[in-house]
């Protein structure tokens, strides 16, 4: 029989600590597939965030550094500058990247840092138990927004992809969703492209992955994916916001 789908080789053959149905697992697979496809496992150096993906290093079969909360782009910069022929990627949540690490991501983009950023936007702080993220939707409840996020109080959610797309050094910026087979297929393409951008030396690349957190959203995994499609995608439109062909200056 011909194998239609096999587990990517760059993933370690172990169980993850993620909750059942958490899309972090899907993103892991897509990243590993890109590494497999591009044959860069032995040049890849990942940077794990602080967030549910803090243990990402346990799951990928390549070198890793664990970075302080929000500082993965700075850590990645240090790595990439010291080992220019490595392929460096960060894996960051929305608290990590869009909140505490906002300066680091903006500046990595400005410098056109040749790194690939996998940005998992699940609109919540997963690891710490459901606090509000900068990407939490208006009205969405979180433990630190017990009445739902209120625009008057703390504004509308940050659209990171749109914001970074204004920066010339950002060669590739795309937003995808992990909410359906079709969207996952597109996510795969985007993630691959983000690595290719780095390999071509074209600059900074980021893929924002709209994700679910069934546990802290208080939903079943499939229900969470539907909620994502119905609530997140309208506010966070999918697509490519900047491509090496298109937008670079």
């Amino acid at each position, binding site marked *: *029989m011909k*194998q239609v789908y096999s587990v990517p080789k760059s993933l370690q053959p172990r169980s993850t600590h*993620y909750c059942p149905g958490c*899309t972090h*697992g899907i993103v892991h*697979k897509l990243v590993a597939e890109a590494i497999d496809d591009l044959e860069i496992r032995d040049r890849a150096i990942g940077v794990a965030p602080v967030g549910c993906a803090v243990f990402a290093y346990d799951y990928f079969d390549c070198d890793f550094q664990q970075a302080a909360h929000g500082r993965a782009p700075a850590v990645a910069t240090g790595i990439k500058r010291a080992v220019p022929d490595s392929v460096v990627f960060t894996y960051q949540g929305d608290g990590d990247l869009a909140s505490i690490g906002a300066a680091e991501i903006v500046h990595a983009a400005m410098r056109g840092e040749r790194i690939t950023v996998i940005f998992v936007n699940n609109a919540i702080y997963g690891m710490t138990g459901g606090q509000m993220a900068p990407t939490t939707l208006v009205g969405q409840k979180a433990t630190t927004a017990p009445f739902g996020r209120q625009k008057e109080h703390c504004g509308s959610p940050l659209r990171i992809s749109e914001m970074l797309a204004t920066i010339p050094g950002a060669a590739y910026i795309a937003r995808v969703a992990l909410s359906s*087979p079709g969207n996952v297929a597109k996510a795969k393409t985007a993630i691959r492209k983000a690595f290719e951008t780095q390999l071509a030396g074209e600059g900074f690349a980021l893929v924002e992955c709209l994700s679910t957190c069934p546990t802290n959203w208080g939903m079943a995994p*499939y229900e969470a994916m539907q909620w994502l499609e119905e609530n997140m995608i309208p506010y966070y439109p999918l697509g490519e916001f900047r491509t090496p062909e298109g937008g670079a200056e």
Partner: protein
Amino acid sequence: MTKVVFDEEKCKGCGLCVQFCPKKAIIMAERINTKGYHPAVLADEENCISCGICARMCPDAVIEVFKP
């Protein structure tokens, strides 16, 4: 060998493969794996079209799919 192979001990019983299978060929088993979850199993191999969707959507890399 079946078309869809589950690494049962890694399954967390999230049900995503069940939900997304276009042929509704997967169900959750009655039994419990050592992690305490009801694992997914291929109930209807006949109807399975080896589309790979279940594998793609499985967050836990439980599934491999084959085409005869």
